[in-house]
């Protein structure tokens, strides 16, 4: 009666596998949805700023001014469109029709070869600061390209810094987004799965029957979690296949290390789901709490979009109790940087700690009776 009986836990796991195999919705949710979402968001979420509408007022209208505009156009970052006055360019910026405006003053071509600086103005819509920063980041490269096109000498940098981007030389945002997105989807689904499966047992009365048998809470929890760990790993496998072959996201690190991190993350998330279901005992409430506790913190505070280092101190510390934050480091570290166990010792240890904590909470919260 006391202690943990592996045979009984296996019986619960077998029963759970039967439920899963007979419920196409659950199977599709865990195996199909992550892949569909990664494909969907992989195309939709792109932090690279491209095809920005650029209002061009070219009062010079010389070969050089036209060459300048063509440099902007051929970069792929801008879609130039002519305007007939600076006021029209300003109106275009006000209305959001243009993200930036390029105003070329008369005499631009003539003054290129002369001593005075060529007169050209570039105005950027600063409403979206990250977009504005990205646009400003393009300018040195574009002016260099324009000067080369004009046959002029490119001025030497006072401090000749040579910048090189490691691991993601093209700064392809998909390499950054897709492993992060997989973390969020898998985390949310894990919480949701166990929250629903245990709440369902409470709701349909079968938990009352189970609690009257010799089954112990630890056996129920182990039996409930085990099949979903397998299912989540299968989901992760398919997501990685899509990332690798669909989007060319590299996998540079150890598969075993990634698997260890994934198992820890899945266990932590599944345990969180158990805690939610034990507290709520209702599927609808469990689903709502899972969505709130699974999606919002991991989307906003895991470093998926906003770097943890840039967050205010309170949130920076708060992220430490969120398993997606740590698994985000592991996932991106292993896949993109090829980081090893020593490099990821802290996130792995934090994941293991959170996993132990959430499992302990699930065991402690799991009631052996029907007391409210």
């Amino acid at each position, binding site marked *: 009666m006391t202690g943990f009986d592996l*045979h009984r836990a296996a019986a619960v796991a077998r029963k759970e596998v*039967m439920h899963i195999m007979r419920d196409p919705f659950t199977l599709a949710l865990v195996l199909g949805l992550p892949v569909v979402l990664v494909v969907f968001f992989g195309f939709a979420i792109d932090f690279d700023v491209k095809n920005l509408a650029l209002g061009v007022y070219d009062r010079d209208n010389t070969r050089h001014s036209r060459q300048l505009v063509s440099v902007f156009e051929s970069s792929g970052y801008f879609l130039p469109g002519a305007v007939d006055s600076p006021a029209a360019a300003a109106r275009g910026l006000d209305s959001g029709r243009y993200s930036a405006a390029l105003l070329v003053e008369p005499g631009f071509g003539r003054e290129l070869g002369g001593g005075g600086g060529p007169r050209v103005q570039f105005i950027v819509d600063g409403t979206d600061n990250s977009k504005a920063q990205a646009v400003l980041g393009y300018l040195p490269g574009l002016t260099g390209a324009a000067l080369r096109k004009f046959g002029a000498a490119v001025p030497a940098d006072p401090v000749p810094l040579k910048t090189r981007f490691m691991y993601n030389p093209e700064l392809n945002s998909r390499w950054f987004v897709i492993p992060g997105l997989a973390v969020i989807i898998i985390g949310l689904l894990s919480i949701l799965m166990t929250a629903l499966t245990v709440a369902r047992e409470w709701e*349909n*009365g079968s938990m009352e029957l189970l609690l*009257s048998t010799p089954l112990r809470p630890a056996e129920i929890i182990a039996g409930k979690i085990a099949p979903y760990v397998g299912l989540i790993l299968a989901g992760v496998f398919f997501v990685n296949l899509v990332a690798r072959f669909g989007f060319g996201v590299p996998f540079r690190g150890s598969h075993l290390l990634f698997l260890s991190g994934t198992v820890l993350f899945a266990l932590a998330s599944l345990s969180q789901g158990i805690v939610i279901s034990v507290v709520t005992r209702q599927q609808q409430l469990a689903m709502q709490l899972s969505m709130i506790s699974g999606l919002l913190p991991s989307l906003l505070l895991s470093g998926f979009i906003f770097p943890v280092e840039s967050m205010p101190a309170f949130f920076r510390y708060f992220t430490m109790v969120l398993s997606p934050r740590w698994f985000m480091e592991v996932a991106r570290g292993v896949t993109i940087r090829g980081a090893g166990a020593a490099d990821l010792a802290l996130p792995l240890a934090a994941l293991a700690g959170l996993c132990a904590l959430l499992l302990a909470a699930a065991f402690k919260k799991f009631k052996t009776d029907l007391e409210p």
Partner: protein
Amino acid sequence: MYAIRTENLEKHFGATAALRGVSLDFSAGLIHGLIGSDGAGKTTALRLLAGLLRPSAGSLTYIKDGRPSSFAEFRPGLAYMPQQASLYPDLSIAEHLEFFRDLYRLDAATFKQRSSELLEITRLGKFSARRAGQLSGGMYKKLGLMCALLQSPSALLLDEPTNGVDPISRREFWELLYAQSASGMLIIVSTAYMDEAERCARVHLLDAGRLLASGEPRAVLKAAGAASFEEIFIRGGAK
């Protein structure tokens, strides 16, 4: 032989009293009926006996082989069938039996013998591949009973097992209970059907959490000077 005694058993859920000072003697080897209308406290009483609720006051004594024992010692011989539809609609009869075989750690030979026996007496053998969600009300209840009986318990608690079941299936169900009781099993059945009270060896009439009467059915009627159990409840309610 298993028996259970309660002394001034009380159960409160917040301000609501579900059971108020109920003393009952569930003697071994008999079919006991917990009789009462909805909200009488039958389910609460059975859940307390099954260890699924904790008493607010009073005591519960579990007796095993003539000696008081702890609930932990008593529990392996106890089986409980809840009132709510608690089986898995997507699992078949055979899969339910296999699941409970594993929970009760029955060996292959015992399981084979016991499951064949149960499938035969419930006449569910030819439906063993049918899923619980596709069973009729009576068949569903029989499956619940089979799961409870699989481990050959010494004490069986059944919460309104015939509720919503047609008269023929109800009669079959009671015949199954008589067959089990003949082997010395303590059976406690709750029911709101007054005609089922007469099928029990002992009845315990509950009304709004209070015990109205307790004893052998005819003796209870005689002592109360009532022609039927309904009459006792109507008088009890009037008081």
